[in-house]
């Protein structure tokens, strides 16, 4: 069911016997611009398309390509090249304001991790320690069952027992061997208070820890050993410790990280820059400082960003214009495919102007009054802007003298609650295949069919 991918340059698999310097120079330059992975010969677009499926282990030493990627089945695949390597080192465009503004220099793209992480095996001491704790937990569980009471585990016992249940083995001695090959581990809602013994999960690539009770740096220490992790979700944990996030700093190969609905204090995301491979970041309903947003903005490989419901602490009014809109610091994220800015207090979307690969932008419940003047949203299919004080949709309309829409792939535009009848008409949005707004134009409110003139209704 996969959608066919864009055709790729044959040069992606050039023969290694080519030795002429000018040929090599040409190939090197071409590879940089087209996204070939020189080492493997694998087209970067192909790797990018499969970035998210957790069961598809892959390399992540892509140095960046100018090609956008297909979304997968059911979605259009849009191939295009932009000189992204050049553009990503430029500052993001600023919000248009009457007065000249200083250029905001965004952080450099985060460095990528180097080399494959070393896969370790749990030490004998760890296995022995685990087995002891597991046996203790099993005994408590058995005793609790006989009295119909819930077992009273300490934090380590709780974790040990959860891992025992996960392993589906008869005895605690077999847990380590059973868990070692597991790549996908779902420990959602297990009331975990610590990640001790997680070193047993030596091959974990996806670890789902949503809705547990992890709160401190110490409680996350067990994650440090999981160098093969690609996806980690800690959403819904009461992470209150300002240093808690530090425990993750070694997981530089992460591609997906979820920290939504946590209690992380502001400025806790300073070490995000070490997650150079991150492609999907979930930060719903957290408090973010300008510094946090700047850290997010440095993750130039991000494809999915969800900061909906997150309150961004703003600088005093004396700050520069761009900083009055903290989300402007996300202007470097030109690879974004899906971005959710719902209820973040955003006042404009100019920082997304260059998001040529964006497929869906959700920005409802904000203070957005206008769209970017010339959005380069060539891939955008869905734009959700409900409950914003928008005054114009002109950027979505065809440019003067052109029949094509500036946002040609747009299929879903949600404007509910914006009171938009006249603007929709004035902006010539009739080429949109679909838009949805609640208020019905009064002139067309009711037609008296079929009683007056059935044929007229048909025409």
């Amino acid at each position, binding site marked *: *069911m*996969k959608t066919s991918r864009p055709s790729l340059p044959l040069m992606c698999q050039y023969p290694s016997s080519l030795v002429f310097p000018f040929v090599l120079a040409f190939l090197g330059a071409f590879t940089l611009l087209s996204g070939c992975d020189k080492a493997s010969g694998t087209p970067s677009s192909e790797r990018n*398309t*499969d970035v*998210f*499926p*957790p*069961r598809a282990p892959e390399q992540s030493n892509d140095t960046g390509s100018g090609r956008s990627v297909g*979304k*997968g*089945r*059911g*979605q259009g695949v849009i191939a295009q090249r932009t000189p992204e390597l050049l553009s990503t080192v430029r500052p993001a465009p600023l919000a248009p304001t009457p007065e000249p503004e200083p250029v905001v220099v965004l952080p450099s793209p985060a460095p990528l991790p180097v080399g494959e992480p070393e896969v370790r095996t749990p030490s004998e001491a760890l296995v022995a320690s685990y087995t002891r704790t597991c046996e203790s937990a099993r005994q408590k569980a058995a005793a609790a069952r006989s009295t119909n009471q819930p077992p009273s585990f300490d934090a380590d016992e709780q974790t040990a027992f959860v891992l025992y249940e996960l392993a589906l083995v008869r005895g605690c001695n077999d847990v380590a061997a059973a868990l070692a090959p597991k*790549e*996908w581990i*779902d420990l*959602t809602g297990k009331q975990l208070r610590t990640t001790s013994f997680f070193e047993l999960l030596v091959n974990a690539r*996806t670890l*789902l820890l*949503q*809705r547990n009770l992890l709160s401190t740096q110490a409680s996350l220490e067990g994650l440090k050993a999981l160098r093969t992790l690609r996806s*980690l*979700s800690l*959403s*819904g944990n009461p992470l209150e410790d300002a240093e808690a996030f530090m425990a993750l700093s070694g997981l530089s190969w992460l591609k*997906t*990280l*979820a920290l939504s*609905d946590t209690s992380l204090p502001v400025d806790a995301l300073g070490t995000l820059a070490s997650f150079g491979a991150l492609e*999907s970041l*979930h930060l719903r309903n957290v408090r973010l400082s300008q510094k946090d947003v700047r850290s997010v903005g440095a993750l130039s490989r991000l494809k*999915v960003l*969800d900061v909906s419901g997150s309150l961004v602490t703003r600088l005093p009014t004396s700050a520069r214009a761009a900083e009055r809109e903290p989300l402007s610091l996300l202007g470097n994220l030109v690879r974004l495919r899906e971005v959710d800015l719902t209820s973040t207090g955003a006042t404009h979307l100019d920082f997304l102007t260059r998001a040529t690969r964006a497929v869906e932008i959700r920005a409802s419940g904000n203070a957005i009054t206008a769209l970017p003047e010339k959005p380069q949203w060539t891939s955008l*299919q*869905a734009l*959700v802007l*409900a409950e914003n004080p928008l005054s114009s949709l002109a950027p979505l309309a065809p440019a003067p003298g052109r029949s094509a829409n500036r946002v040609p792939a747009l*299929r*879903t535009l*949600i404007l*509910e609650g914006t009171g938009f009848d006249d603007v929709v008409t004035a902006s010539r949005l*009739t080429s949109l295949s*679909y838009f*949805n707004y*609640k208020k*019905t*134009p009064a002139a*067309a*409110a*009711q*037609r*008296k*069919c*079929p*009683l*007056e003139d*059935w044929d007229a*209704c*048909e*025409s």
Partner: protein
Amino acid sequence: MAHRTASRIPFAFVIVLTSCGAQPPPDAPLSRVHEAWDAANAPARLEWKVERSFSKLPLTAKTSVTPWADSYWPTYRGGLAWRWQATGDTTSFGYNLYTREQAKSLSPSQLTSLSPAEKYDILQGRFDYPLVTAERRRTKPDAEAWEGLCHGWAFAAVNFPEPKPLVARSVDGIEIPFGSSDIKALLTFYQGETFTPAPARRFLGLRCNVDLAENPSAATSRACRDTNAGSFHLLLANSLGRLDRPLIADITRDYEVWNHPLFAFRTQVLGSQPPSEGASPRAVREVRVSTRIEYVREGNPRWETSIGTPFNYTGSDVFLYRLELDADDAVVGGEWESDARPDFLWVHERPKFTNYYAKLGELLEASTRSEGSRPE
């Protein structure tokens, strides 16, 4: 020109959706759909303010108001021109229409047996019978048995309270007995056949317009494999569970359209597993669920009300599917495991009673306010 073209689209939808039926869906070969939703299946098409987090959505819900059952006013019987209480040939295609003077001399029993369309025209003093004429033009005796006005009934049953029987006095002083189903028929017709602009109707999923029994290979076509299971679950749980609002769905997968108001559901989580091949790129896990939906069904027209009686027929179906969840537990896609699935979901806002239908608003208000009261 563009405007004229655009204005035809809603009408086309109406024609396409004007259908109901009693035959069970054919057993088509298994077609597994697993993917992030496309533009036609994005939940925002029906409701943009959805809670997407699976863990925050209810697993069971029942709306506080139960929709009312009624006929789908079959096309082959003449729709609203069907004299449903008369004996003998009750279709709308043969009987003669009464003049004003003849109508004044009819007994209460004879007036009772008139069709809903006749009663409404007489109520307005329109002995040129515009509604009967329109219905005779719209319907035909050789229509398929499943064709009717379920697209109007399903929404009317949700958008309007159940009317009670009453006697209404016409502009000519004729006292016309209306049964509950007479008024329901008028509401059904008005909801389904009176045209409102496109934004008043919003659809999720494409209509499968193929008889899958005859053409099973079409089960994998885009229109026949959706609605996306993830979108369906999100809208079901949000609409019934969070918004306390029934959800209208064509619950049969192929060319027959059976619109029903879904008013209750119960989801059972069967397990959690890694995303399947081809899942949404955002998915980090799948939950396998079994969901039982309950909906109100069509029945025979009745003089008395149906809610609270065994005549408020309900039905149920069980769907088996996987929900694709992202790292935040948000539903980002879905995959059907059962062959049964809804063909499409849609919303249709409640129309205002204007023009020829202004009187219908009065009739409804009087019938729900107190039994037996009369509109002015």
